[in-house]
């Protein structure tokens, strides 16, 4: 398979996943908004788990799925020897099964990202009322009258239709699709940049192709040349979107958000989808890989040296991930703020996003190459090189999340919260802080958490750029997978996922104490 073909396949797969996930995200947002607070938290947790589970783990558990399925005798149940095929046809059938599995896993990884994006997105600049007014305005009228020939009437009608289509597109982009487009773009990115799942399940993707192409050594210039195509693919998809959002101004009130009521059947369907998502990303891999998680935990705990080392790896990895996530979020905020007023700065946004769009492999190789030059050699294999790589990798993602958070829609609420904070009554001030958290900081906090998680589990950057003294958690997990130590592996995965999640949850819960200092 050529790079172009692999890239094309990734493109089609990612678009299909993003577009299929979009309506589901839409429904999830409406459903989550309608839930009572405690149940909403539970639902968020269940929804986010498929994204938080390391791809390495799910990929490892599902690898060889089609071959194993063929061994169960399932296909022989079909009548007329329908599946008694030639060896090549058997391989093709199993490849199709693996492709479906990969698509499903990507779908469940994309849905939480899309749902978060849509849930926290500001209301569109064009409200539902404006849509209705437009409909009324275009509702009637025929082109006829004295002095207008049929041909002229037809030309005018065509002209009106074209204007109407253009207006509809404008209304759609700034209205109905305004929150959906960034979400679709983010989900597209998640699917398009996938490496571990595609590699472990054995399906072609541009990331896998590029990784394989490194065998025997591939010059950095050649690697970068080869990456042009996937970067262009992503840029083409993201540029109009970025432009749309950068040039938009949101004035609509927040009452336009999440007001849709869902039927009981729809709510059940969403619960069902969530359970399927949890099953394919967590429960089934846990059953396949981690039959002995408890035993593995016992073994890890008993080996105090290993346990201490693991905790150290997790905390050090999280420290790097968090530093990079905060830095990327700040840089993205600054760049986007400037881009709203300057075309040059808008071009800078694209420039800053490009290295991250190239993927972690090429980005790491390019940095290694760069850090071999005399003036910057001091930074090679230091925390600096790793953090730089992580920030560059995160920048396009941070920008996408920033765009979602940076728009207005909450300014009135924030102003009111600021006024309330001047109150003499302590409970009112506490309430005001909580309102400020809900409106302003909650989104920022969880976007940093998502960015941290995103980069915490990236294998290639950690491996190629980390200082020699650091063996990051994903590298360690991958090595465990190679040796097939299932019980210990499962325990390590459990701890690696749980510890960072606990840290973020504790910090979020501790916000009230922190806010008192401000």
């Amino acid at each position, binding site marked *: *398979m*050529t*790079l172009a073909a692999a890239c094309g396949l990734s493109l089609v797969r990612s678009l299909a996943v993003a577009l299929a996930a979009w309506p589901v995200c839409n429904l999830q947002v409406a459903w989550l908004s309608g839930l009572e607070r405690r149940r909403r938290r539970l639902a968020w947790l269940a929804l986010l788990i498929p994204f938080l589970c390391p791809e390495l783990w799910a990929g490892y558990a599902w*690898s*060889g799925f089609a*071959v*194993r399925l*063929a*061994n169960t005798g399932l296909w022989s149940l079909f009548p007329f020897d329908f599946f008694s095929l*030639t*060896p*090549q046809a*058997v*391989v093709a059938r199993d490849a199709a099964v693996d492709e479906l599995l990969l698509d499903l896993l990507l779908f469940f990884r994309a849905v939480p990202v899309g749902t978060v994006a849509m849930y926290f997105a500001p209301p569109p600049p064009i409200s539902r009322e404006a849509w209705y007014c437009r409909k009324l305005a275009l509702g009637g009228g025929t082109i006829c009258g004295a002095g207008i020939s049929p041909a002229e009437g037809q030309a005018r009608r065509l002209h009106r239709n074209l204007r109407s289509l253009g207006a509809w597109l404008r209304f759609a982009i700034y209205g109905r699709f305004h929150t959906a487009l960034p979400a679709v773009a983010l989900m597209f990115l998640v699917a398009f940049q996938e490496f571990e799942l595609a*590699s*472990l399940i*054995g399906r072609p993707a541009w990331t896998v*192709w590029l*990784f*394989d*192409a*490194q*065998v*025997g*050594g*591939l010059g950095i210039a050649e690697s970068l040349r080869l990456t042009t195509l996937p970067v262009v693919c992503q840029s083409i998809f993201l540029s109009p979107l970025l432009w749309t959002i950068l040039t938009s101004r949101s004035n609509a009130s927040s009452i336009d958000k999440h007001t849709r009521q869902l039927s009981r059947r729809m709510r059940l369907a969403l619960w069902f989808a969530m359970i399927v998502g949890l099953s394919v990303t967590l429960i089934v891999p846990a059953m396949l890989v981690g039959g002995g998680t408890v035993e593995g935990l016992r073994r890890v705990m008993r080996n105090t040296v290993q346990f201490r080392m693991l905790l150290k790896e997790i905390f050090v990895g999280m420290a790097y991930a968090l530093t990079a996530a905060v830095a990327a979020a700040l840089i993205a905020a600054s760049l986007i703020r400037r881009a709203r007023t300057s075309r040059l700065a808008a071009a800078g946004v694209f420039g800053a996003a490009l290295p991250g769009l190239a993927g972690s*492999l090429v980005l790491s*190789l390019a940095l*290694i*190459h760069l850090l*071999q030059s005399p003036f910057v*050699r001091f930074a*090679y*294999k230091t925390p600096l090189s790793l953090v730089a790589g992580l920030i560059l990798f995160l920048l396009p993602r941070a920008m996408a999340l920033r765009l979602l958070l940076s728009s207005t829609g909450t300014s009135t609420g924030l102003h009111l919260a600021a006024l309330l904070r001047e109150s003499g009554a302590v409970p009112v001030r506490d309430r005001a802080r909580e309102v400020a958290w809900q409106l302003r900081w909650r989104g920022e906090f969880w976007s940093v958490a998502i960015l941290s998680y995103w980069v915490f589990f990236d*294998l*290639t950057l950690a*491996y*190629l750029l980390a200082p*020699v*003294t650091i*063996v990051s958690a994903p*590298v360690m997990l*991958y*090595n465990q*997978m*190679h*040796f*097939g130590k299932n019980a210990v592996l499962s325990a390590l995965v459990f701890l690696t996922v749980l510890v960072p999640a606990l840290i973020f949850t504790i910090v979020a819960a501790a916000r009230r104490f922190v806010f008192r200092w401000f």
Partner: protein
Amino acid sequence: MVVRYDSEATKSLGFVNLLIQEKESPQCDVFWNNELLGTCELQEQRVLAAYKGPGYHRIPGNFKDPEGFWAGFAARLRVYIVNTDLCPADETAIESQVAGKHGLTRVTIAEPLFGTTLTQYTLLWHEWGEARLRDWHNDLRKRGIREVKGNAATRSLVADGACDFGFTDSDDYFGARDEGKPVAVLPVRVNGKTICIPNSVAIIRGTSRIENAQKLVDYLLSAETELRLAKSESRQIPLGPVDKEQVPEELRPLVEWGAAGADLRPLLPDRQAVILWLKSEYLR
């Protein structure tokens, strides 16, 4: 001592490429590789320094560089892992199945672009010639052999009964055996010779800690290290003279097979040609 481990995940662009990139400002002192050809490549790229210590002298001649740029120790064998519940562990039967005309949808192999499968292909290229290897490879694919990403996946498919047998390394076989899976091991032979892939160790040219590097190399090439690796979970085959009583019983047949191993040193020129061909097959 700071140890930097390579990863299964990054094997293709792992240490060999990294050490070549770092040639002008070396970060490492000693390179311990679990295969041979990558080390030979480093020697060709002038990344290594020669050293002939006491450890070097106890290793047989066909497992070390005559000029002392590297030495091999503690080897793995390229083997067939056989699921004994599904298929008898009979070398002749398995070889005739591979060479026969029937479908191979219940046989598995790792993609030959990487690791020890690449070494196997390189030896086949060297022994059979390009045309025969191409025919053999195309025939396996045509007959539906299950190509997976690595030896670990091969081991799992056979151990879990999804495939009858597969090509893998002896350490993977022992991993499955220790898990209580119904597996047996048979050597892969090319023109009667087995494929015995040693660890290799070398000193990086330009290291500032040469004395410590030499001490480490001597330790790794010692009988003590070879025996420790023989008793480890990966059961690696000692190459130099060791106390045979201390070699685990289950490893002893492999020690015999390993003694019939092909000389891998002349394979380096073929390796580049094989990679080029495989890239044209898989990454056209």
